[in-house]
């Protein structure tokens, strides 16, 4: 069924084969590509397409360096993302489906690969010959750094222009050190950029004196990539202050993003005793937790809907609450209350009820007339979102209806040779989305510069001798992430809250992964239809089928199940139900059940 070619040269993501394995195939058959997309939901959900089962298996084998490198093939900052990722993979982990328990702690396992690997372990990079092309990247945030790294691997000379003193963007200036230690960030950024990327910090792009213009950059470089992110706060017009609708005209009111950025630039920040934070994202929670560490006695986060619907991880909410920060739902701020000295004394809120769903998948909040109430506070941090800024551009790029730069295939803007990626295009997303997008656009730039696509994605299929899991693994509870003692953690801004898995915790958690990249398949020519596999299967995973539909795109479709023996065309393992326990393999009297490892790799064309 697959194009079982011998391995082509240049695959950059080949994990070391398990001893005793046989021949390896590479396939571009739509059925194999579709199988990987549908059967490894965690990888498919990851914007960077991280090979999650492979790195978790490496952790299970205590090969942390390999686990780290498998991560790095998709995501250049494993130690960073292992701490602060929004974890779309865990939302779709099959261990979290009803009846299966809770999702595997994929994110913290990623961190354990970083924490537990040997000091000075060998980093794998696969370099292309120099192309002689020069690329300027504007912005050293996650999208810019990811793109610069890939463009550099692909042989191009890359220069990053960064406004701030240090690279990292939101990672450095938005996320507090108690969630993301700066030494971890520094090492991984350095690893990503040390292949020859030139980093120029403190450089402003614009038309003012002392600034570098886009027009000039476009002349000096073969391609320019814009990755300046969404680094401005969304305005919240609140009445009550002197500056009409500008809440920051009131003493004690700040935008949360500015508050965090100034703090991380080294400014001394102060908060009052009673701090209110308005907003429901990671920035809002970070503001609240920073305020607590700056000495606030009472910190409350006010959200428009309810905790269930806010786009942050449950762990983050729990840790925030553990630090005695309250989260109060169903309320919208309306007016600032100011004392005779012009300082904030409270916020007038209106009570909400839940409404329907918005287009972006978020819940609506509907204000209830006549339900205003006052929350006293002396500091208000507003963190209701972020937006892009493009007033530094001296070239006229086509914009979309939200005012962001419009891009087409491969990140191309309306001006030839200027590309854009990350939050600068999509608006505020997540770090992993920015990295994934940065890398994709780097591929697009390479295609444009070289005049042809140089890499493609195929499925690497390798035989596996026997089951790699035990049924008992299915009953292991998700391991809790150890944390710093409460009494100490809020005394310092830089004390990391989550302390990481040790080897034992990492090994235990890694066993929970179903290893969905393993494909169990019954050879119908050798099957004697004894039903032994069906009898031992713990789930409804082995099915009698008349056949399997093939979709228009060539991928597998619906299984046509039957209960009539005279209609049975095959016994089929439904890998969407299979938990890879191996019970079927153990009882099969004819050894007709094979296991292969199926994973995406990149090949040269």
């Amino acid at each position: 069924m697959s194009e079982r070619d011998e391995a082509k040269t240049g695959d950059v993501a080949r994990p070391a084969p398990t001893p005793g394995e046989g021949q390896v195939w590479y396939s571009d058959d739509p059925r194999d590509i579709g199988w990987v997309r549908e059967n490894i939901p965690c990888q498919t959900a990851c914007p960077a397409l991280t090979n999650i089962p492979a790195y978790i298996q490496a952790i299970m084998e205590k090969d942390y360096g390999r686990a780290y490198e498998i991560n790095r093939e998709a995501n250049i900052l494993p130690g960073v993302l292992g701490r602060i990722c929004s974890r779309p993979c865990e939302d779709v982990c099959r261990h979290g489906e009803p009846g299966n328990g809770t999702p595997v702690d994929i994110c913290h396992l990623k961190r354990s690969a970083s924490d537990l690997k040997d000091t000075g372990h060998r980093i794998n990079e696969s370099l292309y010959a120099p192309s002689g092309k020069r690329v300027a990247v504007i912005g050293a945030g996650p999208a810019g750094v990811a793109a610069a790294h890939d463009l550099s691997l692909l042989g191009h000379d890359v220069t990053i222009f960064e406004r701030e003193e240090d690279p990292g963007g939101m990672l450095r200036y938005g996320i507090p050190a108690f969630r993301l230690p700066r030494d971890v960030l520094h090492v991984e950024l350095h690893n990503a950029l040390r292949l020859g990327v030139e980093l120029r910090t403190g450089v402003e792009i614009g038309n003012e004196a002392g600034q570098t213009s886009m027009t000039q950059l476009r002349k000096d470089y073969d391609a320019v990539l814009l990755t300046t992110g969404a680094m401005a706060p969304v305005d919240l017009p609140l009445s009550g202050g002197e500056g009409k609708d500008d809440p920051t005209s009131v003493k004690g009111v700040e935008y949360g993003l500015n508050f965090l950025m100034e703090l991380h630039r080294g400014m001394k920040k102060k908060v009052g005793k009673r701090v209110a934070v308005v907003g429901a994202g990671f920035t809002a929670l970070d503001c609240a937790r920073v305020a607590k560490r700056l000495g606030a006695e009472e910190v409350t986060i006010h959200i428009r809907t309810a905790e269930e619907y806010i786009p942050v991880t449950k762990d983050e909410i729990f840790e925030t609450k553990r630090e005695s920060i309250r989260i109060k739902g169903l309320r919208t701020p309306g007016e600032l209350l100011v004392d005779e000295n012009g300082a904030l004394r409270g916020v007038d809120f209106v009570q909400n009820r839940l409404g329907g769903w918005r287009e972006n998948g978020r819940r609506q909040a509907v204000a209830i007339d006549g339900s205003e109430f006052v929350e006293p506070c002396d500091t208000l941090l507003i963190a209701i979102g972020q937006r892009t800024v493009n007033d530094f551009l001296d070239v006229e790029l086509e914009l979309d209806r939200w005012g962001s730069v419009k891009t087409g295939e491969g990140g191309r803007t309306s001006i030839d040779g200027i590309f854009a990626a990350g939050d600068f295009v999509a608006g505020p997303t997540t770090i992993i989305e920015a990295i994934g997008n940065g890398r994709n656009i780097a591929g697009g730039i390479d295609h444009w510069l070289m005049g042809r696509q140089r890499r493609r994605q195929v499925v690497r299929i390798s035989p596996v001798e026997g089951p790699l899991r035990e049924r008992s693994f299915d009953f292991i509870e998700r391991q809790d992430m150890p944390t710093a003692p409460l009494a100490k953690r809020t005394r310092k801004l830089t004390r990391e809250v989550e302390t990481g898995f040790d080897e034992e915790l990492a090994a235990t958690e890694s066993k929970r992964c179903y290893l969905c990249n393993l494909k169990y398949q019954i050879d119908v020519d050798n099957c004697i239809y004894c039903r032994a596999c069906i009898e031992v299967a713990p789930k409804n995973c082995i099915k009698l089928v008349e056949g399997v539909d093939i979709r228009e795109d060539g991928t597998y479709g619906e299984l046509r199940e039957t209960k009539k023996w005279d209609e049975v065309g095959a016994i089929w393992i439904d890998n969407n139900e299979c938990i890879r326990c191996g019970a079927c393999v153990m009882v099969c009297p004819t050894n007709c059940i094979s296991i292969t490892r199926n994973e995406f790799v990149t090949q040269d064309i």
Partner: protein
Amino acid sequence: MVEAIHNVIIGNGSAGNGAAVTLREADPDCHITIITMGSLPFYNRYDLPRVFRGCYDWREILVHPLSYYDDNDITLRRNSRVTDVDGRNRMIAFAHNEAMHYDRLLVCAGGQGYLPEDLSDYRDLMSGFGSFEAAISTYKALPAGGALIMLGGDMIGLDLARTLTDTGYRVVLLANEYTFWPHKVQDDERDGFINALEHMGVEVIDGVHPVAVEEGEAGKPARRVVFEGGGDVLGDVVMPSYGLSPTAEFMLGSGVDIERGVLVDPTLHTTDENIWAAGDVCQIWSAEDNAYRFYYGWNNVRLMGEVAARNVTGANTAFEGLEDERLRIDKKGHLSSPFWEH
């Protein structure tokens, strides 16, 4: 033949059982399944303090005789924890990897004792009182005449406190904003109620914030509660008493609206046409308050179960909570609360 409707009730407290009996009266042919995490049939949690008066046999606090479930053709599934509800496919998933179909679902899962997140590291050093087993465990941990340190002091805890002081134990209450929960006590009333507690024999320490619970040193009481900024208090048992938080986590993926609890309209209907909720787990829309609110206490909760069940079977009755929710001081100078009535 029309297949009987399967009504599933999650929760075996007064709301769930109030609902079950109402459902049975309304539809003699329906299937009724009650699911509970506990191991005992329906008992009266307000009777739990009786373990300190010599009631050690769970049979003595059962609300109904053991034959009740058989007599009413109600299936009771004990020791069964629901992990997920799939509202679209009307399926319930259990922790023991079983799935169950329902036609109509009543969520009466109640609440669990809230422990502030900043004290969660010390959970293992504290005692609970939310089940018969926990009550017996606390009874065994508290030596005769020993001291129980109560953190917060909600009305469930204070119900126990009045039994303890009456039976020769010491109760040291670390009072805070949770004291008297769920009563909303005005500032000018609070001192009077604190005095009443002291009159009842409760030793009140007001204005301290516990930050840690530790094991006591050898030869001293078994527990030490450390205060923010210094100071401590010693006792044999530490019990958090910070009110209830709804047991609604298993409903997060169900599709129904949730804030702190399951959100329902005044008829106790959720946003899913086949799911109702009653008791401590639900927040009911109150047009009067312009907000969702909780109603507590045996009588409220029982009534909610009955109203929800009537609406499941086709009625459209709005729940009206009991009007009198005021905390009082009786003629003896003791506290008196409608939440203690059952």
